């Protein structure tokens, strides 16, 4: 096998490095929090940034990697938010959960929220993914609004007033945990036959069909995975804010995620992270401008689209969010199994 001349990272460093980095980052943030250099407000911004990374990365899977046009992503978020909140506040009455059971109940809630979103994703996906381009966009937009309308109608979960009193289970640890986990899973997915199928559908759907890829199945799969992640993100959101209402998940919210995605650069996980984090923080930083805040935000957005339409990151990936071909030929470094010897 040919070896590249470029400097490649030592495999051990490449695999362990990012995880160590995350742990260090976590510890540093926790220390700063304890010292109140990061106060409650900043922390909440960071928690929302994490939720937004999950939303943006999952939207990237559908829009950026599979080339579809989903513009109602907040609908899945709302399903997950309500699904998780129902579990933690209604199925298990939140003030009577013993401390030991809090985390399992929370995780169960997140899982249920994700599953609800994923099931709806499949139901929506099957008829809509036959549509192309603009029409698919319109259907996803309508879907988001219909979910919102339906949630407003259901009185037991609060109707239009929303649901309050959701326990504050989502702390910085859980947000970081899910962000890191999701990015790792998405990276693996993209550099797998499934991810390549998504990209093939994006780049040339007719050719993908002709090469034996069941495009409908993979489009629905991509949609469903993205919906699940969005559902989990919604569940986390509900347990950060402790309050959710249907109107916060309308097209405005979906538009936010579209903006984070394309400002960061679609087709790149790094872009999703950067876009989500920067644009979550930006309105907060601009708060001192009062009513001019959103005007400046709008101008910045338009400027980025005009002058760097491929997004701030422009489709590239940082090393730990991509997998190079050469890594396939590295010798495994952890306990070679006997049957693995024969493969070489």
């Amino acid at each position, binding site marked *: 096998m040919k070896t590249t001349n470029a400097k490649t990272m030592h495999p051990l460093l490449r695999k362990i490095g990012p995880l160590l980095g995350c742990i260090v980052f976590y510890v540093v943030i926790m220390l700063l929090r304890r010292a109140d250099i990061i106060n409650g407000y900043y922390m909440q911004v960071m928690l929302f940034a994490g939720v937004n990374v999950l939303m943006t990365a999952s939207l990237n899977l559908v829009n950026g990697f599979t080339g579809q046009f989903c513009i109602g992503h907040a609908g899945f978020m709302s399903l997950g938010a309500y699904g998780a909140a129902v579990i933690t506040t209604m199925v298990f009455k939140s003030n009577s959960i013993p401390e030991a059971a809090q985390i399992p109940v929370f995780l169960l809630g997140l899982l249920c929220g994700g599953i609800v979103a994923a099931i709806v994703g499949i139901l929506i996906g099957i008829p809509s993914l036959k549509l192309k381009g603009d029409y698919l966009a319109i259907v996803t937009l309508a879907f988001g609004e219909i979910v919102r309308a339906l949630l407003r109608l259901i009185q037991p979960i609060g109707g239009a007033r929303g649901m309050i009193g959701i326990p504050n289970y989502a702390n910085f640890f859980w947000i970081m945990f899910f962000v890191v986990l999701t990015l790792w899973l998405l990276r693996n997915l993209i550099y*797998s036959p499934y991810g390549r199928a998504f990209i093939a559908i994006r*780049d*040339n759907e007719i*050719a993908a069909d002709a090469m*034996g890829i069941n495009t409908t199945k993979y489009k629905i799969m991509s949609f469903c995975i993205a919906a699940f992640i969005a559902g989990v993100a919604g569940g986390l959101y509900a347990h950060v804010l402790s309050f959710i209402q249907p109107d916060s998940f309308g097209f405005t919210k979906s538009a936010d995620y579209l903006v984070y995605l394309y400002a960061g650069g679609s087709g790149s996980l790094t872009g999703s992270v950067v876009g989500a984090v920067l644009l979550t923080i930006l309105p907060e930083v601009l708060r001192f401008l009062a009513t001019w805040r959103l005007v400046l935000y709008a101008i910045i957005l338009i400027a980025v689209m005009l002058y760097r339409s491929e997004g701030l990151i422009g489709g590239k990936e940082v090393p730990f969010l991509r997998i190079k071909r050469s890594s396939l030929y590295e010798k495994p470094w952890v306990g070679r199994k006997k049957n693995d010897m024969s*493969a070489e």
Partner: protein
Amino acid sequence: MSLLEVKNLSIQFGGLRAVDDFNLNLEKDELVAIIGPNGAGKTTIFNMLTGIYRPTSGSIELEGESLVGLKPYQYAQRGISRTFQNIRLFSNASVIDNIKMAATMHCKDNLVSSLVRTRTMVKHERELDEKAMSILEPLSLADKADLLAKNLPYGDQRRLELARALMTNPKILLLDEPVAGMITTEIEEMAQLVVRIRKDFDLSIILIEHHMNFVMPIADRIKVIDFGRTISEGTPDVVQKDPKVIEAYLGGGYQNVNA
């Protein structure tokens, strides 16, 4: 029973009968060429043979199994693969990724093992990489494996389309104008390449082309289509001399005023 039996294949678009009563019995390892003027319906025939269009009448049977009504990806999975007249590469992917994408239907890993990258899945990825390189090598694309498909020169792009179609392990390969836009030397190279892969990959080939110096030396049989109808068929020698073919290409009844 032939490998591929196409009987009375016809398609109508509104009032226009684009293909009328097309018949073909393709034997194993045969190379059949379909020629004819532009707009004769040749690509439409290909589109029906790959499931992109549904014929209004007629049948297509591959090794006895009827294919009409199946989706394009199912045609590919049953062994009919194609290249396109206007190149349809996965432009933003690398050369080798383009090849790997064609192997999706042979993927042995499930979603979960791909999400966590089990050792088996990585092994399969490595084997896929090696197989992809083994197809790129004979097509002189191995050293360009990591380049983006859209950055390749035209001739390389055509060969990449070919390599990608080969990756699906087809029984029948459909080539739609494989030498369009090429110069003589490139045409000769492509002709040699097609003959070679037919042998190396044990293929039966149907191709559409205009360049006679590409078709004549390599085809076993030729079918000539004009306005959707088959006007002549036979070996290259027979077809070349058929007056109906000459008329379709050059028009009949012109007298040279200088004669």
